[in-house]
């Protein structure tokens, strides 16, 4: 034992703002949870690739691609963990300004896909500034709220916080990308809440939000005129909201998908149809079943029990993330963790709620499960940020 005490473990010791040993000092529980979720996601995606009919198909092709996405995202996450989060936080204003610039650029001359401008074509790959915006906004808010401390209780500082959120939100809603915009709101609310703003401030904001949603729904049904200055909802968005309230109104159109999704989830039962045995999804009755509706596959094949296990894993990950955030030495770090956890939670909750018909369809991916590289990267950057909050714990001789 004395040998061990005399010569500290190789993972101990601290060097400046960048230390590769941080990778091995990461919180074990979080890492395990992330790995389990990643494996669940890969297997679930692999199941969708499995051809039920005997036609020749490249089985598992997309799962393999997703594995590559995962490995790349892990590599990026490892690099981020090696940095001192306070160094990254100090870069937040710069990153925020660059993000705004990218969002304006994409508005002016972005790459149009599926009717909305969301991409910047870099030649070798396509950049999606709205994904970057999620991360840089969390960092920016954490930096700002850490800077002003308790002054958040005063209205001007609170207003400035929402201006910081509002600028990218407006730019993203113009793309139009309603889903991403709706993520930014809860993130900001959670961070401002944890920064210690006044209770009645946030309560009145919540009331305002409820009123706004009410106005949108009333507008869809033509009850009230929509404020002219506000960006109008596109027809497909109105249809989606309408079909949420009346899924039987148009059984061949928008309501058809909701109906098929409900059938698929419901037929999963308690224990599910079994791995690779989901009928509805394999017969392609459910649209977007590899991306936004991936939860249907899990629910159909693994049933209520499978769904509960997935929820449990996410709940554990988020609780652990909040604990790590709480124990972070400074307030800015705590808020950073709160922001990351909230972002992941909003994605998980919204995605599943949409799938099982608790919310209208907007199109948000499910972390770890949905197919797609860009979003995987976003998720892993969040995880890495959470992991990097507590690197100083147990490092001797260093002030926290």
């Amino acid at each position, binding site marked *: 034992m004395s040998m061990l005490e005399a010569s500290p473990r190789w993972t101990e010791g601290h060097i400046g703002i960048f230390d590769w040993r941080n990778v091995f000092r990461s919180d074990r529980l979080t890492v395990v949870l992330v790995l389990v979720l990643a494996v669940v996601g890969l297997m679930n995606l692999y199941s969708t690739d499995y051809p039920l009919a005997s036609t020749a198909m490249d089985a598992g092709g997309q799962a393999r691609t997703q594995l590559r996405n995962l490995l790349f995202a892990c590599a990026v996450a490892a690099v981020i963990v090696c940095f001192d989060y306070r160094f990254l936080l100090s870069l937040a204003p710069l990153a925020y300004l660059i993000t705004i610039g990218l969002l304006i650029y994409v508005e002016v001359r972005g790459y149009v896909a599926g009717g909305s401008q969301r991409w910047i074509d870099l030649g070798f790959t396509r950049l999606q500034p709205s994904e970057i915006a999620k991360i840089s906004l969390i960092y920016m808010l954490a930096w700002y709220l850490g800077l002003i401390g*308790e002054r958040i209780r005063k209205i001007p500082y609170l207003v400035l916080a929402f201006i910081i959120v509002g600028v990218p939100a407006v730019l993203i809603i113009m793309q139009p990308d309603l889903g991403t915009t709706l993520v930014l709101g809860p993130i900001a609310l*959670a961070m401002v*809440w*944890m920064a*210690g703003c006044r209770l009645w401030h946030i309560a009145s904001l919540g009331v305002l939000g409820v009123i706004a949603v009410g106005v949108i729904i009333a507008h869809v049904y033509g009850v009230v005129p929509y404020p002219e200055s506000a960006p109008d909802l596109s027809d497909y968005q109105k249809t989606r909201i309408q079909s949420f309230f009346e899924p039987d109104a148009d*059984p*061949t159109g928008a309501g058809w998908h909701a109906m098929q999704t*409900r*059938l*698929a*989830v*419901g*037929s*999963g*039962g*308690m224990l599910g149809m079994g791995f690779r045995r989901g*009928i*509805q999804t394999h*017969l*392609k*009755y459910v649209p977007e079943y590899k991306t936004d509706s991936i939860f249907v596959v899990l*629910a159909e094949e693994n*049933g*209520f029990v499978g*769904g*509960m296990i997935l*929820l449990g894993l*996410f*709940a554990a990950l*988020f*609780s652990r993330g*909040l604990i790590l955030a*709480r*124990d*972070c*030495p*400074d*307030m800015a770090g*705590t808020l950073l963790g*709160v922001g990351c*956890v*909230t972002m992941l*939670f909003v994605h998980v*909750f919204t995605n*599943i*709620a949409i799938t*099982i*018909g*608790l919310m209208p369809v907007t199109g948000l991916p499910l972390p770890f499960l949905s197919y797609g590289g860009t979003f995987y990267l976003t998720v892993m950057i969040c995880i890495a940020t959470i992991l990097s909050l507590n690197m100083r*714990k*147990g490092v*001797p001789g260093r002030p*926290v």
Partner: protein
Amino acid sequence: MPAQRKPVRFEGFDRRLMVLTGTILLGFLAIAMRLWNLQVAEGEEYRRLAEDVRLTFQRVEAQRGIIYGRNGEREVVLADNRPAYDLILVPAHCDDPVAVVNKLAELVNINGEALLAEVEDVLRRRPFSHVTVKEDVSKNDLVRVEEHAHALRGVFSNVRPERRYPYGETAGQLIGYMGEINRDELARMRDRYRMGDSLGRSGLEARYEDTLRGQDGLMTVVVYAEDQRPQTRTDATGTPFFDHDRFGRKLEEVTARRVSSSPGNPVHTTLDVGLQAYCESLLERQAGAIVVLNADTGAVLAMASVPSYDPSVFVTQGRNIQRAELLNRRPSPMRNRCFQEIYPPGSVFKIVLAAAALETGIVGPQSTRHCPGHFRIDGSGRPWRCWTFDRGGHGRVDMVDSLAYSCDVYFYEVGLDLGVDAIHEYSTLMGLGVSTGLDIAGEVAGVIPSREWKEAEARARGYTEPWELRWYPGDTVNLSIGQGEAAVTPLQTAVMMACVVNGGRRVIPHLGIDNPPAPSEPFLSEETLAIIQEGLLKCVEKETFPSGTGRRAKIEGMTVLGKTGTAQAVAREHYAHYKNEEDIPMAFRNHAWFTAATMGQEVNLSIAILVEHGLAGSTAAAPLARDVILYYYNNVASSAPVTLAQGEES
């Protein structure tokens, strides 16, 4: 290891963190409850639904509306739908597919080997899906197949509606035809049309598409999986039903979700098929147009354009060769000569000049001019001929005589006095050179030149010098007898002629009976009309020398007004050297015009006749007007005030 220090936070931080954590867990709880509800509480129900209830929708096509015309008193069908029978074969239902195919080859004219190959292919892969044996089989074939039904198990007939045009070529261009929707139209009208739908492509079919098209219905059927589209068949009434899918499983319709189709609305038209057919027969072997309007309302009674085509060529499948032939034939049968082709109006334009001159007071009822057979502007320069140039002219003539004998010199002088602006104003008022507003798409406006038009036209051709853009008196002289750049459609000419007998109103020609467009307010005075009518009557009635140019249209006991026109298709020097006019090549011959109107009848007609390259209006077109008028009052009008013997020479 130093003891971990608890970070210092504001008061209530821990409580707030608990609220946040609680919110997250509450969200998950909501999801869990919903999942429990869906998967456990109602799971059995959903699983049962998902396992064998998969809904697919089948459209029930609505019947297209019928287009009606008239034949005298009776209303007749111009376009309706007939059942087209397709023979289909379901290999899995055949006891011996080879025998069935052989029997079919014996009964109906098909390629047995090709069918057998197809049947074998289907038998191997999807035995319960059907093979089309022959589309649109004849009644005889169908009866023969039914007689041998005992040997043809597995053979069925499918009914679908197909457009039918009972009168064939008669009024073919007016009725128009149907064609499959294209990609652009589909994108524009996604809510109303599906891939493979037909819609009106020309004529009434196109113009009244919205009226004629019905509202499709919807059938819902339970299938087993996607890609396993149900096999629809039709019963005797043409209603589709589901039998089985292509894998042979029984299918059932969810009758509760059925939405019936509603047929399209009929379109009633003023077109008289008998008159139309007669007009077309008059133009046989020639190219030309006859327009017959009700002069008071503008209702189109006939609008013959020869050559024409049978619209069913474009509707029935497998007639591509005929289609290509129609599209390439010259003179083209695809253009409607009544309103899609323009011709110089020639002397019929003098009616406009007469109206303008009398209305503006340029000439009074008594004023006369001298016609020596030729005319020079200000007495010098190039001479313009009167058509009586060889005979030394008409001598002293007034307005009535000038219209009756079609004196060119009189109208050269009157035209110069009027000036181009007044001529253009009155020709536009009377409907020349402007769209008439006919309720069929594709109408051509034609042109009556004006100062502005000439300048714009010259600039468009790259001329810029002031002397190239200016309007010259010589242009007015040319325009005065309807030559030069003037070009109108026969339909416009009929509208112009209607003004003469309906009290000076411009009518809007129309085929549809519903909501007929109202004529304009009168813009010509009674005095003006009386003089023009006198001239046009003399043109037809005067038989003693010098006779009216339209005397071949004369009908004893009936007031017929008329005006001949002989419009140069090419410049005079191209054909002036031919001694005999039968020697002139077709393309160089003059177009023959005659426009006529009747007065004093219950229904007054306004007629415009154009015979392409018919040489002279008085000989080629005027007799046709007589025939048309006789036919109308003998066969179409219900109570003809005079009984007339058809074909009687006058």
